[in-house]
């Protein structure tokens, strides 16, 4: 904490002030890093029909292969 104050050249009386300290700390965060900002959702992207179809195809394929792996795993237990 002291490092932050020394580097920013804040007057001695302000260093002892918790209000000034809080104010200074926010200066080290980009606005987009603040919780108030990150709590806002980013806008939805528009997926093209081809991209959406590709993602669904990949999802179905992965689920099928996962079921095969799980079936094999259960079979091997016996």
């Amino acid at each position: 904490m002291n490092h932050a104050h020394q580097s920013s050249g804040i007057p001695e009386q302000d260093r002892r002030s918790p209000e000034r300290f809080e104010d200074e700390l926010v200066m080290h965060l980009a606005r987009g890093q603040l919780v108030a900002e990150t709590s806002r959702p980013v806008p939805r992207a528009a997926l093209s029909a081809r991209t959406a179809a590709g993602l669904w195809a990949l999802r179905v394929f992965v689920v099928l292969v996962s079921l095969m792996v799980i079936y094999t795993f259960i079979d091997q237990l016996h």
Partner: protein
Amino acid sequence: MTVTPSQPPLTAEDTARSRDRARVHQARGHGRRWQLLWLLAGPGILAMLGENDGPSMIAYASDGAAYGLGFFVPFIPLLFAMAYVCQEMCMRIGAVTHRGYGELVLQRYGKVWGWFSAGDLTATNLVTLVGEFVSIRVGLAYFHLGAGVAVALGMALVVFTLSGRRYWRWERIVLGMALFNGLFLLAAILVKPHAGAVARSFDFLPFPGGSFNTLLLLLASTIGATVTPWMIFFQQSASADKGMTPSDIKHGRYDTAAGAVLAAIFGVGALVAGAALLTHNGSSITVGFPAALGHVAGSATGAVFALGLIEAGAVAVLTISASTAYAAGECAGVSHSFNNSPRNAVLFYAANIGVALIAAAVILIPGAPLISIALNANVLATVLLPVSLVFMVMLANDTELMGPWANKRSTNAIGITVIVFVGLCGAAYGIDSFLQVIHLIGS
């Protein structure tokens, strides 16, 4: 707290994160390179060494015990180079957007894809966490300690590391523990391998023999030992939680590269140690490597390998639980930060402890197929990985989110190659095994 009208209200999480950032700014302002590197290191090393977990080290040792030095010695560094490409993207997305993977997928591409991703993560994390507790148990068994001690140790570590209520403290404690992954390198040195043989194996020869299905299993489990869904969630969320910004991307790359190099060295160490068992019926060993090494290479080697398995399992319990907690908080749209208190981030802390607790409870079930679960954890991760990788590449190419830090063509080319390679290996093993089980093809 003084807040000007143009400033959004500050939270305790903001204050904690800004303290860490103040030190980064000071180090950068004073040109203190090493201090800056020290301050910004963490998520990359933790993701990579966290993935050198119990099941992974057992998989590497199994490769060595079954096939000796050869194909897998250069294959492991190659896979970590592949992991670097993926993890660098995660770090970059986290530093630019200040958001985790789960929330970005959910908000940008819709709830269905967000919850699918979280579901994949939870499934693979639960299975992998069981494997971590199994590896802790195997390590402790060498010292004649039982499953109860493994559960108590794992859960105590989870609760202890969460008690700091600061991302920085959590990260430093886990980093300190992760460095003991080097025990696998020590185990490799203790088995006194022939240096020339290790060097010669970098020509990828001899290629592993045996059945096609066994080769696919080894490929799938070894890939699953280097790149997994939890690493993607973890490094992006941890980079955001740490407070990294685009100005830190260069150091984020150093951090990720250092993690990849260390993980590759230690992974090869486990393989070399396992290779000492090649002429001692090594292919029949499933997880009992500490005892087998103790018998062949001396009790010190067995003890070092056992301690390594305890460390690998313990660190992975912490990082994998954290990735689950990040995903739960992000997808539910509630606080998900180590910089927040348990009161203000109930779901984050509950998911962190809860997922570890469920996995710990599984290893206490009498007769549970723990060894099979541990050995199949990496395979399941490999099969589910391509979807996570596709969304990661989509996010890294999203110029609305990433601006000038979006992927270059060369990065995309490598990323797509990785996705195709991982997808083919996982699918080939899954389909080939299934067809054998239902007797449509012979073994």
